């Protein structure tokens, strides 16, 4: 049973997924460059391991490890160390030595296990294809070329050897090639991830859906901030990744050619993240991104508004605080309390929203909050509002 979008078969299937290469475990870095890259990665990992931003939840870690293993297979997933980083941005990264960091902002936005598998597979592909090393080498060469072209341009300006413009165009294309190379690697990692998904239990059609939602969320954010939304139909000079539209399109095309169905395992995913979701939502609410967050909460709800989502929506509207927002917030808190009457913080939010709209009923609501949470850290402060 899957809820992921089906794509039409592409007219000209340009992309083909690679055949998985044989994998050797316990790989050791070869040569001075790779040893150097690994040494830096080892040091970074030591710092990451001790970072206060890393969530140490053995159960959550084990769950993510299971997903990696179910995606890339038991042989491959063995050497991976997973770190969940408390960061509200949508991101994950993998270092050349096998460090895999996953942001909580990603875990909040992913809808099911198949989507998560697509992203984690993508990161693992960077690792298996040794992209950090290749990227480092390319950057060094391009940097050298750009620097020497700069010297050439200066010489041309001072002494008239050659034309300044041609040196500058070499410089520009060398810098541009760094970003272009990065985009090629991202695409390779996407294709490799589809190859993992093909031999996994997951539905490969789900991976494309994330990029659709990210575009919609970014558009909502831009709308809320009265900015023009980003264009997805062309690639910016400094873009390190293909555009979300491009990714959604080719991933959906590949999935259609593959013709494979599979699990999306959304129930397993929801269960594993249930305890954390309210926390991640709280982080999201701090970002001062009303429209984007409202879109995200709506997407998470789908057809079913659960108590935690209603409560978060109440907090979101109360924080913006226009008189009409306070009215909406109060009704969201009320609906949240219908489903979960034990949520003391919903009484707190509702009471404060009522007081801010000059509704005396707020006093009674806040009394309920204090009654349910006698040792609340803001007890003394809230009590002053009741007089």
């Amino acid at each position, binding site marked *: 049973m899957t809820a992921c979008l089906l794509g039409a078969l592409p007219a000209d299937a340009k992309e083909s997924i690679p055949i998985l290469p044989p994998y050797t475990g316990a790989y050791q870095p070869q040569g001075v460059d790779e040893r150097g890259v690994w040494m830096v990665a080892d040091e970074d990992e030591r*710092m990451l391991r001790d970072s206060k931003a890393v969530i140490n939840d053995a159960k959550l870690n084990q769950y993510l490890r299971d997903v990696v293993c179910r995606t890339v297979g038991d042989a491959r997933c063995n050497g991976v160390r997973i770190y969940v980083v408390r*960061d509200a941005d949508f991101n994950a990264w993998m270092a050349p030595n096998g460090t895999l960091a996953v942001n909580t902002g990603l875990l909040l936005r992913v809808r099911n296990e198949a989507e998560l598998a697509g992203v984690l597979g993508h990161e693992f592909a960077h690792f298996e294809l040794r992209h950090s090393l290749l990227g480092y080498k390319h950057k060094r060469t391009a940097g050298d070329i750009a620097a020497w072209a700069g010297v050439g341009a200066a010489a041309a300006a*001072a002494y008239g050897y050659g034309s300044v413009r041609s040196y500058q165009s070499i410089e520009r294309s060398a810098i541009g090639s760094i970003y272009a190379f990065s985009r090629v690697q991202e695409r390779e990692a996407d294709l490799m991830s589809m190859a993992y998904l093909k031999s996994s239990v997951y539905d490969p059609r789900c991976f494309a859906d994330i990029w659709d939602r990210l575009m919609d969320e970014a558009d909502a954010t831009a709308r809320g901030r009265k900015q023009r939304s980003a264009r997805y139909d062309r690639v910016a000079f400094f873009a390190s990744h293909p555009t979300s539209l491009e990714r959604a399109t080719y991933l959906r095309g590949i999935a259609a050619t593959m013709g494979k169905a599979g699990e999306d395992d959304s129930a397993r995913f929801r269960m594993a993240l249930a305890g954390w979701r309210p926390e991640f939502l709280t*982080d999201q609410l*701090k970002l*001062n991104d009303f429209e984007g967050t409202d879109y995200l909460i709506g997407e998470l709800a789908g057809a079913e508004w659960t108590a935690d989502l209603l409560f978060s929506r109440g907090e979101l509207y109360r924080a913006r605080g226009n008189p009409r927002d306070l009215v909406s917030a109060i009704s969201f808190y009320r609906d949240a309390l219908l489903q979960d009457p034990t949520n003391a913080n919903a009484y707190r939010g509702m009471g*404060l929203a009522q007081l801010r709209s000059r509704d005396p009923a707020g006093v009674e609501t806040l009394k309920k909050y204090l009654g349910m949470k006698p040792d609340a850290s803001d007890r003394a402060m809230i009590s002053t509002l009741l007089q």
Partner: protein
Amino acid sequence: MAHKILSSIAALALFWVGPAVASNKLIAQGTSVTVAKSPLTITSDREWNKMGARPGRNSETWTIDGDGLNDVTFYGGIENDRPLFREVDRRSKPLPRFSSTMLLTDLPELFENSYSIALHTQLMKIDSVEPMTFLGQKGIRFSFTFTRMNEEVRRKGEASAAIIGGKLFMITFEAPDVFYYERDLPAYRAIIAKAIVGSGSRP
């Protein structure tokens, strides 16, 4: 050609009188000074250093040992629809704005969100909130803990705030949890105790 350009740049540099960069300044013990380009008046029990760099238009930072070790920041009347401090990236990371209709209980949240956006950290948390009399008005005191991303130093802080005439007046203190916070909290509290708005009588 290049020589000409270079020498004219050098000539410009010689005669260029740019805007004077605000420098740090010593605040002597026992003096009364107005801070943050506002009527907020502070009488200090000890020497402080006023930082030349301001966090925002209506604010000012003092320190004892140096920026980041023990900072007292004065917010002197933040107006409606203004952020607490200067926005680093207004386009992609706009800060929440103060609203004069806010309740006192909304202030810790405003502060928490502003800090977590500006410092790009989810490790910012309000620890306790209580009422207080601040600048002769009904005010709020709250304590907080935060860690900047990629720094790993846990910092603690305390803030005292009141809304006077629709404007936000606030004085905050923050220092590393290790050593500085405990040692310098009394110096901050002494500033709070003697802070007034205006030159003489309390408003």
